[in-house]
């Protein structure tokens, strides 16, 4: 009796699935039917977390979706906790994740088995810039002046950064290789803490993201030296005195040929259908159109490139290769 019931139920489910398949093909619409979990593979208060909570706020404020969106931090194991969770949620379309560079660096550095190929790419929301900062009370006005000082006393100058063998340290090593200078890299837990340590002169420089250090810059405590990008940030509003984001030279302009940007992108659980991906792409397009998002992008000096589909996939693939090369050069790849 029981098994008959089960078979019946399975048959029903199958028929329903078939029906769904046929109808969705015609209407091409999928909608979430329960709460969406928005995973942040980093701690509270960091750049990815701030962005995710911003999105949560915008979605609810403008009523962009029938179901609620909740932000869940899974920062353990340098983000591996969050990625493994999404990887293990095959066919659960109610789970999305925001990335930072640890999408590439954590599996490469630790050998924990996951990659972006295990997830379904949805969209690139923005690219985060990196800026070389020093304390405003130091005499260095250009990267060249600072690097020359570092070269004179190898290892004496401390570069503060977030985590170990992650983006900040990758940039530091790239900087060392390009100039021959030698820093002592000191890892901290989060970007906000790093910026404050620089204000307190416990470290000599940082490569903080704009959003992490903008408050201290406005207060005249920190000084930006150059942006690690191929072109200047396209924002002209003045932030501190007569300086705006657009007035910071690129590092390449000053002779340091290093550029690095960090992906702020959305992925979802594996096995997602095109309709499901399309739903989220549509949602994030709506988010991008709001004034709050535009203001947030300007405050954090983000590069607002938006990408989906094959373009996005190709970009991620290229970025993964870039990270593998960078980490190989730096000697950060896992032994096993």
């Amino acid at each position, binding site marked *: 009796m029981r098994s008959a019931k089960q078979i019946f139920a399975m048959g029903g489910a199958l028929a329903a699935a078939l029906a769904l398949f046929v109808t969705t093909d015609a209407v091409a619409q999928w909608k979430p*039917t*329960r*709460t969406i*979990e928005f995973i942040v593979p980093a701690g509270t208060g960091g750049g990815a977390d701030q962005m995710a909570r911003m999105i949560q706020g915008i979605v609810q404020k403008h009523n962009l979706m029938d179901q*609620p969106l*909740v932000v869940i931090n899974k920062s353990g194991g340098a983000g591996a906790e969050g990625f493994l969770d999404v990887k293990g949620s095959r066919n659960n379309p109610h789970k999305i994740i925001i990335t930072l560079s640890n999408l590439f660096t954590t599996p490469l550095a630790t050998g924990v088995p996951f990659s972006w190929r295990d997830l379904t790419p949805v969209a690139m929301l923005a690219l985060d810039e990196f800026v070389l900062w020093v304390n405003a009370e130091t005499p260095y006005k250009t990267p060249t002046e600072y690097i020359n000082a570092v070269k004179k006393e190898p290892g004496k100058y401390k570069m503060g950064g977030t985590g170990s063998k992650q983006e900040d340290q990758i940039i530091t090593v790239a900087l060392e290789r390009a100039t021959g200078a030698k820093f*002592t890299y000191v890892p901290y837990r989060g970007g906000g803490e790093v910026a404050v340590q620089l204000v307190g002169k416990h470290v000599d420089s940082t490569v903080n993201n704009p959003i992490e250090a903008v408050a201290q810059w406005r207060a005249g405590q920190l000084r930006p030296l150059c942006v690690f990008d191929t072109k200047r940030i396209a924002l002209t509003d003045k932030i501190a005195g007569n300086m705006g984001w657009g007035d910071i030279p690129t590092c390449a302009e000053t002779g340091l040929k290093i550029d690095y940007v960090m992906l702020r992108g959305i992925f979802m659980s594996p096995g997602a259908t095109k309709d499901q991906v399309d739903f989220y792409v549509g949602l994030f397009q709506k988010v991008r159109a709001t004034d709050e998002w535009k203001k947030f992008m300007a405050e954090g000096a983000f590069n607002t490139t938006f990408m989906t589909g094959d373009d996005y996939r190709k970009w991620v693939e290229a970025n993964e290769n870039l990270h593998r090369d960078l980490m190989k050069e730096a000697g950060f790849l896992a032994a096993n």
Partner: protein
Amino acid sequence: MERDAPVTTRMMELITAGVLMTIGAVVMIDSWRIGAQWGEFGPQSGYFPFYIGLLIFGSSLVVFVSALFTKATTPFVGWTGLGRVLQMLVPAVVFGFLVWLIGIYVASAVFIGYFMRRVGRYAWHLAAIVSVGVPVALFVLFEIWFLVPLPKGPLEDMLGY
């Protein structure tokens, strides 16, 4: 004397210290593997864990040896006490398994209902009220008000959550 108790305190001391010594040894071995030296820039990843392991091993060795030389045979727990502990522990472990199987809400109802009937010997209607009321209250609080997802099973799926 020893026959009166399921386990003596001395026995339990030996077992606990033995387990701790094993943990200490395992910690030391793994720490040595990843490097437990004082490196160029201070301690390596395994430096502190190695000495932590050593201290666990050493101090539990002392506890182990001193337990070995005690003659006292006070019981760690009596038969009745052990029975009572198991009355709680066994259902709790089954509850843990049920959470995985059928979700936390149904499992809680089963667990609370069982315990109240079996251990508390309450009338079935009282047990029913509490064992349904608590999961429902939790459901409203977590899933509906605070949007904290807890493990769910087939029942919740059927209801569309």
